[in-house]
């Protein structure tokens, strides 16, 4: 219970901070409002202020003129000119507010466990909107242009760039069926039923015609990727369900776009003919395929450009972002599906770009995408709250209640019906639990709201907007909050934390080959056959074109392995064992150290020069740091944890102490005489959850290496591993040292080891950066 006072303090300070922020923000906005009084007429916050700028310039000029025309005033030492910075100031303030709110939520742990972040943000938006309205100012509304052009693309790009392709493709059929057929069913069912509802006497809805209802249905039927992402991110369900719901939310954009435009056109025209319906179908194909093609085109351009960026590493990430954004905008020009275009661009670009760009650029891209999408999401939800308070509402009990009910019903029916059909073609059938989660996860969000906002002004529009907002609130709050306990209750399979392992990669490829072979034997052109053909095409033509240098001929396994090794190198070095660098740089060092092997040389160098240099640079950069660190810390000091997220200091220290204990145990246990080369046992988890566990059987320098868990999950693995290892010292030999170990005796081994160590350090202490190294020297972390 020692935690509670801390908790209380923490939460109260967080509360105070939030309160402070509120007041600051509101007061500034009020001042701003008073100063100009132009928050009226629904000013768009992010409007590119050309016109305004002129106005402001004019007013300031006249102001100065009037000043000088009067008798000479005292030179103003301090003056207040808010208009000058108004727009960027407000934008920054909004974003800052949003992020501080987000920060606040995570400081209060209890709340964020129960309530998903999206709900909290909407509540904040409601409060802010309420305050602004109470003051009497007009609040900024979630403008459709703002939303579609600025807030939505980062989220979609983030989703598309990191889309798990394999799962996506394997379930493509199911996803497409849900996205297309499901959305169509939803739209027509909701539209039709609402029309029937409108016919009810006494509901005062008589003037709502069928087309308007269908339009409304098409707006409200689309599952929203932003909301789905926001909620599903926190519940960690298994990949299958995640990709199903998420994929559906992405792909239904085409359907939504087509239906929306279709019904909007027709609601003006008044009548629909069969010809129009057929045109609608054609339009759908054009919209979706066109969007994808545009995306692919820009993706290829991006990949091709990245081939030449080896001298200007700094701007590499920008190419990725800009090409993707251009893809989105280009698609929007022709009213094609921008979302699909963005996804296609990201998917297309990624493998080639990642082969070309430097490691730092890769990290930059990753972080920027995550950052932007996070900000966007936060802003969207807050604005949703604000707009709810601000917008004109036309509350009609019948309409709204029936909308909510019918939406739910249609979603459930749709999922059940479609699953029944889909399961006939699937191998992994979707169980009832899966169906429930898919149905329950069909959240509506800001896209529906923005589309509703784009409708032409009328009484119906307000009613529609009210209903849309209610549905959104219902799905986000009720479904969003309850989905987590439901997932627990139903014991839905969670996401498996799989380590990025070389074994998986090998076996996956092996299995692919196996299945392709079997298909060939059976004479059947199936899934694997075409995949194999695509791979071959990719390897022979596309990769040559789009990937720079000799990495274009690098087999996938090798690049995967290199990536793993490089990651490990960085982790290893950051954890401080500068003395030993086992097989980490094996591919690099071996080439340098074994002159006698250089005679039987390779036709193609396995690691290109640039790669080698890259590895060296990373190691050097980190080694320098660690050398400094090692000088100041003694062996028993607890080192600074470079990975400060996810880990509490206390727990970490405890683990360290435990590890030290085990380390000392190892050092006193005599190792097997034959195997004296230093050992490293590595457990690997993707991305940030990496830890290395370094045990040293017997090293001439007698230095311990530090285990370095970087996440709580990793620790249990650590214990597992160490228990297994406890009986013997496991050793890892490099390929050639193994061979040598078998033939040499211990004495020579020791010597050679030392020699090797020396050679290694010599290899590492290479002369400083030369001129033609990669240009991101300024980026030293």
């Amino acid at each position, binding site marked *: 219970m020692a935690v509670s006072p801390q908790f209380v303090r923490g939460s109260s300070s967080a509360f105070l901070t939030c309160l402070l922020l509120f007041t600051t923000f509101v007061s500034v906005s009020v001042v701003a409002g008073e100063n100009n009084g132009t928050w009226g007429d629904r000013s768009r916050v992010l409007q590119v202020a050309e016109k305004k700028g002129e106005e402001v310039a004019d007013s300031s000029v006249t102001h100065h003129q009037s000043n000088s025309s009067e008798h000479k005033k005292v030179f103003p030492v301090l003056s207040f000119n808010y208009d000058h910075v108004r727009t960027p100031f407000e934008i920054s303030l909004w974003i800052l507010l949003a992020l501080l709110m987000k920060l606040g939520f995570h400081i209060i742990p209890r709340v964020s466990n129960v309530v998903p972040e999206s709900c909290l943000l909407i509540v904040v938006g409601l409060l802010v909107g309420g305050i602004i309205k109470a003051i009497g100012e007009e609040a900024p509304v979630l403008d459709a242009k703002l939303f579609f052009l600025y807030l939505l693309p980062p989220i979609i790009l983030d989703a598309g760039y990191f889309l798990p392709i394999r799962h996506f493709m394997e379930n493509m059929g199911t996803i497409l069926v849900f996205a297309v057929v499901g959305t169509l069913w939803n739209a027509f069912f909701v539209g039709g039923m609402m029309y029937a509802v409108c016919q009810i006497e006494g509901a005062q809805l008589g003037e709502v015609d069928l087309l308007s209802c269908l339009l409304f249905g098409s707006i409200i039927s689309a599952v929203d990727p932003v909301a789905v992402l926001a909620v599903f991110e926190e519940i960690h369900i298994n990949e299958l369900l995640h990709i199903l719901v998420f994929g559906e939310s992405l792909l239904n954009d085409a359907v939504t776009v087509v239906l929306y435009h279709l019904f909007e056109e027709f609601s003006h025209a008044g009548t629909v003919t069969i010809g129009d319906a057929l045109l609608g179908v054609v339009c759908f194909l054009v919209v979706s395929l066109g969007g994808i093609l545009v995306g692919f085109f820009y993706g290829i351009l991006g990949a091709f450009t990245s081939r030449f960026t080896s001298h200007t590493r700094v701007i590499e990430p920008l190419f990725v972002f800009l090409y993707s954004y251009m893809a989105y905008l280009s698609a929007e020009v022709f009213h094609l599906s921008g979302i699909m275009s963005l996804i296609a661009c990201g998917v297309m670009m990624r493998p080639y770009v990642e082969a070309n760009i430097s490691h730092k650029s890769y990290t930059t891209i990753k972080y920027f995408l995550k950052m932007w999408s996070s900000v966007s999401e936060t802003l969207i939800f807050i604005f949703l709250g604000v707009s709810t308070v601000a917008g004109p509402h036309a509350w009609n009990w019948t309409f709204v209640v029936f909308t909510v009910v019918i939406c739910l019903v249609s979603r459930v029916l749709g999922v059940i019906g479609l699953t029944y059909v889909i399961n006939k073609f699937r*191998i992994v059938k979707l169980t009832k639990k899966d169906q429930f989660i898919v149905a329950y996860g069909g959240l509506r969000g800001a896209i529906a709201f923005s589309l509703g906002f784009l409708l032409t002004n009328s009484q119906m529009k307000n009613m529609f907007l009210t209903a849309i907002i209610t549905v959104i609130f219902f799905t986000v709050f009720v479904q969003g909050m309850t989905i987590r306990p439901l997932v627990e209750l139903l014991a839905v399979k969670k996401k498996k934390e799989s380590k990025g392992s070389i074994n998986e990669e090998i076996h996956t490829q092996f299995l692919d080959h196996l299945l392709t072979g079997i298909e060939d034997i059976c*004479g059947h052109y199936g899934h694997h056959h075409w995949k194999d053909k695509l791979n071959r095409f990719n390897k022979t033509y596309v990769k040559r074109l789009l990937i720079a240098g000799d990495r274009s001929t690098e087999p996938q396994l090798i690049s995967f392995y290199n990536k793993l090794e490089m990651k490990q190198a960085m982790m290893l070095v950051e954890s401080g064992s500068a003395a030993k660098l086992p097989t980490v740089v094996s591919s690099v060092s071996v080439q340098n150290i074994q002159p006698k092997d250089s005679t039987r040389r390779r036709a193609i160098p396995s690691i290109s020069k640039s790669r080698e240099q890259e590895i060296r640079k990373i190691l050097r950069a980190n080694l320098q740091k660690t050398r400094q660190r090692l000088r100041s810390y003694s062996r028993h000091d607890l080192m600074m944890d470079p990975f400060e997220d996810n880990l509490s200091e206390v727990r970490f220290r405890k683990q360290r102490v435990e590890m030290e204990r085990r380390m000392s145990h190892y050092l006193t246990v005599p190792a097997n005489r034959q195997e004296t080369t230093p050992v490293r046992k590595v457990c690997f988890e993707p991305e940030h959850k990496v830890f290395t566990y370094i045990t040293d059987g017997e090293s001439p320098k007698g230095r311990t290496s530090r285990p370095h868990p970087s996440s709580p999950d990793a620790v249990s693995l650590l214990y597992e591993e160490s228990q297994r290892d406890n009986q013997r010292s496991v050793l890892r030999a490099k*390929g050639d040292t193994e061979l040598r170990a078998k033939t040499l005796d211990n004495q020579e081994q020791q010597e050679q080891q030392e020699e090797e160590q020396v050679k290694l350090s010599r290899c590492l202490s290479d002369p400083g950066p030369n001129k033609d190294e990669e240009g991101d020297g300024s980026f030293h972390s």
Partner: protein
Amino acid sequence: MGSSRSRMDDIPHAQQLIHETDFSAAHLLRLHQRFKFLDKYQTGELRPRDFGAIPALALNPIGDRIIGAFFSPGRETLDFPSFVRILAHFRPTDPNRSRDSTQQELANSRTRKLKFAFQLYDQDRDGKISRAELLQVLRAMLETQVVEEQLQSIAERAIQEADLDKDDAISFDEFRRIVFFFFVFCLQSLEKVNIDHKMSIRFLK
């Protein structure tokens, strides 16, 4: 496909095969047709060179291993029942089937599938994938010339990750464990081969 269509009477022991491997009659017919197509000289049995005639298989890095898996060790010919039995490994697993304890394990159970894949690695059938065998597989799959050291490191690392009892080889249990969690998808694709059969039979008619 040129050759005359088979009928059920042409197929020896058809009923027994159906019972054993759980293929449907239509499947069996199609497989028999394929068998006859591959068996160019109508000897009633297949030889490795008949498989070699399939062009796509020649391009497959592990093509020869797959062919080898069809033939039991020491045998040079493959008759139709054996052909079918091997292919039965790739049928989808039906989770609803009640396991009859007296009946021998069905060919398509998950274990059998894994064992089949395992045998493709383990050419000398000693129950373990040794480092040398793993190296061979890697060499086959990495078609371009790769440095020997890199292969060694990859093999080294792979064995290290998987090897739990530290015998420097991967036994069947260890194999099963490493591939287990992504097998949910991969094995399904193993099983998918036959679903596609079903669809192609429809088109054939």
